[in-house]
């Protein structure tokens, strides 16, 4: 006798413990097995791109913090690089070092959050999460010293960073760097040989390299699939071309590889931070421009009327920027989630004419359906966690 069965459709989210925000997945199940998945977005849509059109170039920076709010530093960096490309300005060396240092600390923090929540999704009762967050807290404390904020940092500016690191930042960084290997080791001991973690993640949610490239997947997800592609290596921005680091690459592209690649990247990030700490030397942190040569300077906060001194005047990049009309730039960085890029178009005014955000989280979700169909509900949660999305960035 045949049992009459019918598929069940469940809305997972927008309020669900492990959709990492307000993602909604309309999932059709046959028993426990997934037949169809359709992600539904938009619950956190704030129209950042539209808002950016009504703010000047520096003000837009605060919007970028709110995109991927667990990795604000890299968002800042991507935006600043895009603006600098448009202006043809380059940040001074110390500014670049500080940027890379902050961005790498942020990458470590973001990957720790991703790892912690992945393990939380696996059902480990908050222990790995707390281990990860303990480490992340220390990094956020450093950010607080750098710029006074922990999450929405707004630390960088077009042309560098807004202020130099305070003197007590460096000893605090030293403390963290001394502690970090121990913290990482503890995390690895807890997770790497855990039979259940291995059973649950290995060979689950396998993403082939071809499929990853075709679907424009980037970041650790792409690298876990065996594609050695890291924008820090391939198109070095800031000072990445003078730093030594490896790009960890997975083999099969399953959940375990994604999770493992992130842990390895945390180690590499710490390595980069160490190099930055050792190589940085005094200097300006914000680009100065030749005030005579460029007509970038529109208003300089009361200084505009001052007569120009003799000889070339070096002035700090002003608050109000005005890139030439028709200029456009595609500034990208390797954010923790993947390739984060800002496509800026200028019409010569003080606000960007168009600010398109290429968000890695949204585009990485393209492969979701491919990864999930045929697997079980429990695997779905883990796979979603291993892609590491952030709804602030998906919906923007």
């Amino acid at each position, binding site marked *: 006798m045949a049992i009459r069965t019918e598929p069940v459709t469940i809305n997972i989210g927008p309020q669900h413990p492990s959709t990492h925000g307000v993602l909604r997945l309309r999932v059709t199940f046959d028993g426990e097995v997934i037949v169809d998945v359709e992600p539904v977005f*938009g619950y956190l849509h704030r129209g950042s791109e*539209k808002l950016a059109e009504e703010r000047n170039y520096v003000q837009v920076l605060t919007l970028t913090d709110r995109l991927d709010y667990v990795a604000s530093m890299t968002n800042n960096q991507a935006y600043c690089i895009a603006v600098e490309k448009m202006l043809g300005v380059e940040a001074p060396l110390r500014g670049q070092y500080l940027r890379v240092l902050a961005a790498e600390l942020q990458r470590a923090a973001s990957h720790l959050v991703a790892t912690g929540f992945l393990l939380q999704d696996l059902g480990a009762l908050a222990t790995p999460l707390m281990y990860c967050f303990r480490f992340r807290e220390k990094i956020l404390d450093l950010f607080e010293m750098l710029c006074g904020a922990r999450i929405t940092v707004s630390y960088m500016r077009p042309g560098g960073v807004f202020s130099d690191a305070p003197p007590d930042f460096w000893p605090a960084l030293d403390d963290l760097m001394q502690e970090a290997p121990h913290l990482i080791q503890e995390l690895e001991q807890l997770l790497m040989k855990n039979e259940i973690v291995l059973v649950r993640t290995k060979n689950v949610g396998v993403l082939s390299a071809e499929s990853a490239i075709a679907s424009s997947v980037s970041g650790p997800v792409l690298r876990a699939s065996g594609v050695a592609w890291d924008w820090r290596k391939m198109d070095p921005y800031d000072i990445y071309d003078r730093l030594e680091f490896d790009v960890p690459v997975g083999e099969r592209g399953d959940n375990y590889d994604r999770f493992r690649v992130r842990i390895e990247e945390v180690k590499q990030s710490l390595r980069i931070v160490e190099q930055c700490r050792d190589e940085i030397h005094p200097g300006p942190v914000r680009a100065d421009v030749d005030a005579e040569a460029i007509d970038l300077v529109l208003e300089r906060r009361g200084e505009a009327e001052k007569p120009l001194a003799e000889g070339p005047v070096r002035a700090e990049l002003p608050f109000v920027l005005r890139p030439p009309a028709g200029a456009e730039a*595609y500034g990208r960085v390797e954010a923790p989630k993947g*390739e984060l*890029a800002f496509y800026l178009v200028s019409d010569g005014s003080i606000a960007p004419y168009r600010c*398109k955000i*290429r968000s890695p989280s949204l585009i990485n979700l393209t492969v979701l359906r491919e990864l999930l169909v045929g697997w079980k509900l429990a695997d779905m949660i883990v796979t979603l966690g291993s892609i590491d999305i952030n709804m602030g960035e998906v919906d923007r």
Partner: protein
Amino acid sequence: MTRAVQGEELAGYVRQKFPDAVCQWKGESLWIEPSDLREVAEFLRDEPDLDFKFLNSVSAVDYVQYFEVVYHLTSLEHNHSAVVKTRLYSREAPTAQSVVAVWPGADFQEREIYDLMGVSFEGHPNLKRIMLWEGFPGHPQRRDFEDVVTY
């Protein structure tokens, strides 16, 4: 470093295969006729010298007289990148050809452009609103959009 393939160089390649497809080029950008977009995209992906297998992003810019859809492409093989653009002159029903069949990664981005910019993509498998709800009046990313929501 990723080499930016200049529009002129790219135009040379495209013109060999599709003599009428290229509108113009300037700097890094290459403008393509919207009617040839899908075929050119396929060519860009499959041509071994170009090998643009990775679609970075699809953007749309509203220049009021026309819409411009911008494709940023990268070849992971040769580590070079290109910018391909197409202009749509209709204000009421701007329609471009969908490249989802060429690069599946364009799926959500084209839906987003359709939602926020009102550019529809011919041949997209699932073209519906992504960020806003069905029935939202207008397309907020357009320059002439006026907020009709009353609170």
